[in-house]
């Protein structure tokens, strides 16, 4: 697997943005804006050039042998653990590199216009560069520790950028929330790393992959009857769920929209949040060994996809809708990788990066036009006023809805069809695949609906903005529109690299799947009929969703009613009926759904995160504080008393002979044999055991042996008491157990 590795200066890819960040932090404050932008864009652009060069000219030759590898230095080497600070580019990490550098570059350009009037311009670009560098380390890392460094780095940058406008307290709070939730995920990730090392003895991805074969230690049962692979996969997924905002750790992402919009586009839509998906794909060899772990990934992903889509119905803030949409789309990706259909998950990651970055940048452009407000109830009619933005949004909207030929269609279809066709779950868990598929179909319908609602409310009909805002509405400057157009092209046509070629008898048409095969295994084989069926079903669902949304929101709120009323007075009644349907819909579907979503939101966000995790810790601290206050009262003598009590407790517990928590009793007829040794170990200290079988206070068997046998005269309930004495300390422990002989006899 890693026999012949080709060296290539991969280190340049993350290094350039880091250098850019360092330069900007050190000198940026004194520079002009143009200079700052030049340095920042040159850093990420140079990195993009290196990445493209490596991916297209050098990688194909060595893709089969594990890709390009660049060892910077031996990072740490202790005993049996040796970790290099090394980077690796194979098809998977290469693809991610391209996405990060390319979209990162576009967003740098876009930000030049967006952040034009911000006083902290250099700091913003420094952070942005820092983020790109960290993300590239995450993706290119050759081993889990290196990946973890990037993982923490992007978390830090995300946190810094969410709180960028720290003068507003909610923003700082959002930053804090993001960090706490992410730490919970990191905890899982770290445990996962430890377990991996425990089981495989290595932390390099290539070695883990070659180690992970059927029958290795990884498939051996480890704990609670589940295999090592299961625990590794589960803990790593906790990490992935934190970073990629899955249930129940999704709560930070919508709040993270407090940061500047280009940040939302780059970090909280296109790149960082997909790190979890990338990690699962990276560890695919371990995951396929444990269908149960995959099932968890897939089910959580599908549930998140549907749940977040439902929440999306009820949001009125432009960026909030997009945020929940991101959560939902990430759920799709996890469902993809969770059904062992790794290529499709990565494919969706790729298409999503384009259309979601596009959508967010459109949001930024529109909020720019709307004097900073993101309330979609006050928008409408922007199609004419911001034509370029509208065009881009249209393409991205069709892509995310899954309308054929647009990129989202292919990737979403690959995931849904794969969920129904996958065979990874075997007989025991065979229900998982179809369940995931159905959830995803519903989620796709929901996606089409809420995205169309967003589209119609923002762009169609007359504008609902007040006069003053309306006066200011204008198209964004070319520096912002340019990147938008590029993204729109990607969102529109990007899906073509992943056409399910097998369908047309040309498997080689699926460029992406073909390329990824060397990194994440072959594409899932979906029967043609299934493929076609779900293509049709998805298309129909997308159209239904769009249609429904048009009925309710086309041209703004209740627009159909007004139009129909003016043109055809005879239809007023019917229109009124329509109106009532709308109301009915509101009462029967939207309100309960919204209530449900709110309730779920409350349960998860308020109860689970705020109450249990944050509040629970606070409560625990409080209780502990109350206990410790009795001692920690500023009074030296109470400290010393605590010292003495601690010493006595130590003596007490260390001199007490230990007994098992429950006596081991074996019954045959009326004869019982009792074992009072702890965990089957005989004590080395010569303890004496006194067994009192008939509860009369006089032991029947006394001796140094920890087990005894006794035959009762009659059946019935008996109490066995065992007294263990340590002859040297004169300390005793007692244990008793009731047994019911008659019942045992009958059962026999």
């Amino acid at each position, binding site marked *: 697997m890693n026999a012949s590795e080709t060296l290539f200066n991969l280190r340049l890819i993350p290094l350039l943005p880091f250098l850019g960040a360092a330069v900007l932090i050190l000198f940026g404050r004194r520079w002009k804006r143009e200079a700052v932008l030049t340095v920042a864009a040159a850093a990420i652009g140079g990195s993009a050039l290196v990445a493209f060069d490596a991916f297209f000219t050098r990688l194909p030759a060595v893709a089969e042998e594990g890709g390009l590898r660049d060892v910077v230095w031996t990072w740490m080497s202790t005993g049996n653990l040796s970790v290099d600070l090394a980077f690796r580019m194979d098809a998977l990490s290469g693809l991610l590199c391209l996405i990060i550098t390319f979209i990162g570059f576009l967003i740098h350009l876009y930000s030049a216009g967006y952040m034009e009037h911000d006083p902290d311009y250099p700091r913003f670009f420094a952070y942005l560069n820092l983020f790109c560098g960290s993300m590239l380390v995450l993706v290119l890392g050759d081993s889990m520790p290196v990946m973890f460094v990037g993982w923490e780095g992007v978390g830090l940058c995300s946190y810094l950028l969410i709180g960028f406008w720290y003068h507003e307290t909610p923003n700082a709070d959002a930053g804090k929330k993001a960090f706490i939730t992410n730490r919970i995920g990191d905890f899982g990730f770290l445990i996962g790393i430890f377990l991996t090392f425990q089981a495989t003895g290595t932390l390099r991805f290539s070695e883990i992959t070659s180690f992970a074969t059927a029958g290795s230690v990884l498939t051996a049962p480890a704990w609670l009857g589940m295999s090592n692979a299961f625990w590794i996969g589960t803990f790593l997924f906790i990490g992935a769920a934190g970073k990629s905002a899955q249930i129940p750790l999704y709560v930070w992402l919508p709040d993270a929209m407090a940061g500047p919009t280009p940040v939302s586009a780059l970090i909280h839509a296109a790149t960082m949040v997909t790190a979890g998906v990338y990690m699962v794909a990276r560890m695919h060899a371990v995951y396929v060994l444990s269908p149960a772990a995959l099932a968890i990934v897939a089910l959580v992903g599908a549930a998140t996809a549907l749940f977040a889509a439902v929440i999306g119905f009820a949001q009125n803030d432009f960026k909030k809708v997009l945020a929940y949409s991101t959560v939902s789309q990430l759920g799709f990706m996890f469902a993809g990788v969770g059904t062992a259909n790794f290529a499709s998950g990565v494919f969706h990651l790729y298409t999503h990066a384009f259309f979601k970055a596009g959508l967010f940048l459109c949001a930024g452009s529109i909020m720019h036009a709307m004097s900073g407000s993101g309330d979609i109830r006050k928008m409408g009619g922007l199609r004419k006023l911001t034509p370029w933005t509208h065009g881009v949004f249209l393409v991205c909207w069709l892509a995310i809805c899954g309308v054929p030929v647009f990129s989202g269609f292919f990737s979403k279809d690959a995931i849904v069809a794969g969920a129904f066709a996958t065979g990874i779950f075997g007989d025991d868990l065979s229900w998982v695949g179809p369940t995931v598929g159905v959830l995803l179909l519903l989620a796709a319908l929901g996606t089409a609906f809420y995205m169309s609602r967003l589209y119609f409310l923002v762009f169609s009909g007359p504008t609902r903005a007040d006069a003053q805002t309306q006066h200011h509405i204008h198209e964004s400057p070319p520096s912002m529109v340019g990147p938008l157009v590029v993204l729109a092209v990607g969102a529109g046509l990007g899906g073509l690299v992943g056409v399910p070629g097998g369908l047309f008898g040309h498997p080689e048409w699926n460029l992406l799947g073909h390329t990824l095969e060397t990194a994440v295994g072959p594409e899932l084989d979906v029967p043609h009929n299934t493929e076609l069926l779900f293509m049709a079903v998805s298309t129909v669902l997308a159209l239904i969703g769009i249609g429904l949304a048009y009925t309710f929101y086309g041209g703004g709120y209740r627009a159909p009613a007004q139009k129909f009323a003016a043109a055809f007075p005879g239809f007023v009644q019917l229109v009124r009926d329509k109106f009532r349907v709308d109301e009915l819909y509101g009462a029967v579907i939207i309100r309960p759904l919204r209530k449900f979503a709110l309730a779920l939101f409350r349960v998860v966000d308020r109860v689970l995160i705020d109450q249990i995790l944050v509040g629970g810790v606070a409560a625990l601290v409080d209780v502990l504080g109350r206990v410790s206050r009795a001692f920690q009262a500023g009074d030296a003598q109470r400290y010393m*008393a605590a010292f003495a*009590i601690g*010493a*006595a*407790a130590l003596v007490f517990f260390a001199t007490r002979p230990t007994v098992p928590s429950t006596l081991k009793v074996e019954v045959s007829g009326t004869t019982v044999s009792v074992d009072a040794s702890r965990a089957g170990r005989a004590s080395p200290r010569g303890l004496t055991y006194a067994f009192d079988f008939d509860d009369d206070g006089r032991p029947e068997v006394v001796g140094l042996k920890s087990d005894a046998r006794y035959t009762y005269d009659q059946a019935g309930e008996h109490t066995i008491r065992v007294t263990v004495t340590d*002859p*040297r300390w*004169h300390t005793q422990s007692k244990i008793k157990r009731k047994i019911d002989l008659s019942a045992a006899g009958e059962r026999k």
Partner: protein
Amino acid sequence: MADVAGTPGGNLGGANVSDLLAPLASGEGVVFLILALGVVAMSVVCMTRRNPVSAVMSLVATFFGLAGLYATLSAHFLAVLQVLVYAGAIMVLFIFVVMIVNREESTLVSLRGIPTRLLGVFAGVYMIRVFAGIAIPAQAPGPLPALSDSFGTVASVGDMLFRQDLFPFEAISLLLLVAIVGGVVVSRSARKESDAVIAADKRIAISHLSSHDSPAELSEVEETSAAAGGHH
């Protein structure tokens, strides 16, 4: 191993009490009994005096008793040292401090947090119970090993001290040096410090003025110098 308390088989409950108490009837035993009772009584007195001077005096008595006990253990050199260093030197130090801070307490024991502190005492009582349980042998132990004539004399202990244990002997001088220097540092009056504080305040005022001596902050300088002028 010779008579080392706590040999296996020791038993608090099942020991033959008369056997264990027998040695106390000997002449040696009477001496021990007197000294032990004296030490315990004096130490209890020391811990219960309200007047610190009488507490120190009873502590001196305790140390004398201990010196006697050391002598019965053939530790003659240490017995002398105990009197010299403890009763002579350390106690004088205590008396000095009593003179400085002479305060008779109105209450012996403060009631703040008393449950916790009593619990601490009970923890101590518990430990002594466990300890007694393991330290008292089951039957009267055999005689102690015979000792050479020089055991515990200045000559033989001194020989050990300067040959075998030279390093700790030197190291303890470092410890004493730390104590001497530290004692001076912590307890000397703060007047020198107050002078230093006044000097530092002046320094700060000057540097404050000079640091603001730039055209950009002219108004502030004027303000400061006005304030400074006001003081003079």
